[in-house]
């Protein structure tokens, strides 16, 4: 059962063994290896008793959970789970640099170029892990990872190039970046566990809606600054879902007011507060809470299409409920 599976520790172990056991592993620059392990270990080696962690562990174990859900053994999906997590970390690092947020983070390399190089190394390491998957199954999994990665990059391109995307475009970007990535985890796990195509499709739907829910949660929490992070409102030129909603819903005069506040928010705390107030008063959080409710219902409907062991169903639905529970507690 996945309760004994430690996803990040497993990814670190897989990654280290891969390099150590390679015929030319001894020639690898130890400093680079240590840097990658330090970046991975920063998230994975501490423990924290807070309840949210159990959901984080479940989120990081999606391929293994979905494999077990269809009757497979966790060992069938552990390596792919690790590859998925290495991609996850690589995407995170790339996103930090692309959004100019890397300087806010402690314990990361000082130079964006070094972060990009670490992310590139993680992508190659993930591919090396996927190459160990054998036969037609391995080929199908590799193709799925590659194409999904391509779709996510296309979504990121849209995110980077459209300074003021419409609400519909924001939803498309959310699906391309986040929905696809979590759908991949669920599809891959189910496939490795021997799921039939209709089951794989149901897991795809679960992961896709879960990913969109996560994007909603990220964009809503991004309205405020968290410790060590700047809020999205002061990242000039970046429209997230709440901003796109407000700019769609509000009358012209309010839109101009919001636009002006957003332009000044990077330098003026009062303008940042004003922008946040206008967005919330427009009903943005309420709108996104309704959308979260919709996607959580779709997640649960996807699970209803699969005959699942109750413990696993509880973990999969628990993640949905927790992420979708914005402001309810």
């Amino acid at each position, binding site marked *: 059962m996945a309760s004994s599976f430690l996803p990040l520790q497993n990814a670190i172990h897989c990654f280290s063994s891969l390099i150590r056991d390679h015929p030319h592993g001894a020639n690898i620059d130890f400093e680079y290896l240590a840097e990658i392990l330090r970046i991975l270990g920063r998230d994975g080696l501490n423990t924290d008793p807070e309840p949210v962690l159990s959901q984080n562990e479940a989120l990081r174990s999606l391929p293994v959970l979905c494999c077990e859900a269809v009757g497979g053994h966790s060992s069938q999906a552990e390596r792919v789970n690790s590859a998925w997590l290495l991609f996850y970390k690589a995407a995170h690092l790339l996103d930090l640099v692309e959004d100019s947020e890397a300087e806010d983070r402690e314990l990361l390399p000082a130079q964006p170029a070094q972060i990009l190089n670490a992310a590139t190394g993680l992508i190659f390491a993930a591919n090396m892990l996927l190459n160990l998957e054998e036969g037609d199954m391995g080929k199908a999994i590799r193709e799925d990872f590659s194409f999904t990665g391509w779709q996510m990059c296309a979504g990121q391109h849209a995110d980077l190039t459209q300074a003021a995307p419409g609400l519909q475009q924001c939803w498309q970007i959310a699906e391309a970046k986040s929905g696809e990535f979590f759908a991949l985890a669920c599809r891959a796990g189910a496939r490795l566990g021997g799921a039939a195509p209709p089951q794989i499709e149901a897991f795809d739907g679960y992961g896709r809606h879960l990913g969109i829910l996560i994007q909603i949660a990220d964009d809503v929490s991004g309205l405020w600054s968290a*410790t060590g992070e700047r809020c999205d409102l002061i990242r000039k030129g970046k429209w997230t879902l709440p901003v796109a909603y407000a700019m*769609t819903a509000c009358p012209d005069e309010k839109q101009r007011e919001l636009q002006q506040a957003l332009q000044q928010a990077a330098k003026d705390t009062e303008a940042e507060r004003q922008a946040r107030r206008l967005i919330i008063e427009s009903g943005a959080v309420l709108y996104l809470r*309704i959308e979260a409710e919709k996607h959580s219902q779709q997640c649960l409907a996807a699970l209803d299409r699969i005959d699942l062991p109750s413990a696993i169903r509880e973990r999969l639905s628990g993640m949905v409920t927790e992420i979708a529970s914005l*402001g309810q507690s």
Partner: protein
Amino acid sequence: MTMVQLVYRFVSDREFANRFQQNPQAALAEAGLSLNELELQAATTVLQQRSYCTHLSSPEKITPLEMAWPRPFCPYKMPSTVSPR
């Protein structure tokens, strides 16, 4: 865009909000808005929780939701082992 129209009307027209909370279908018909079953269910579930109305009048009070919907679930952001403080 119907959901956008519904939510904006809900937050900017207290009378409409009250009518929606009492009878969602009738309020939608009156506003000329049409939602599918999934949207109607989600809108009803959320908009009938009156606590949102009080948050909306004082945006800064909504900050506790940052804890309810914590940063560790960020996409592309590896879930942190440390919750936002």
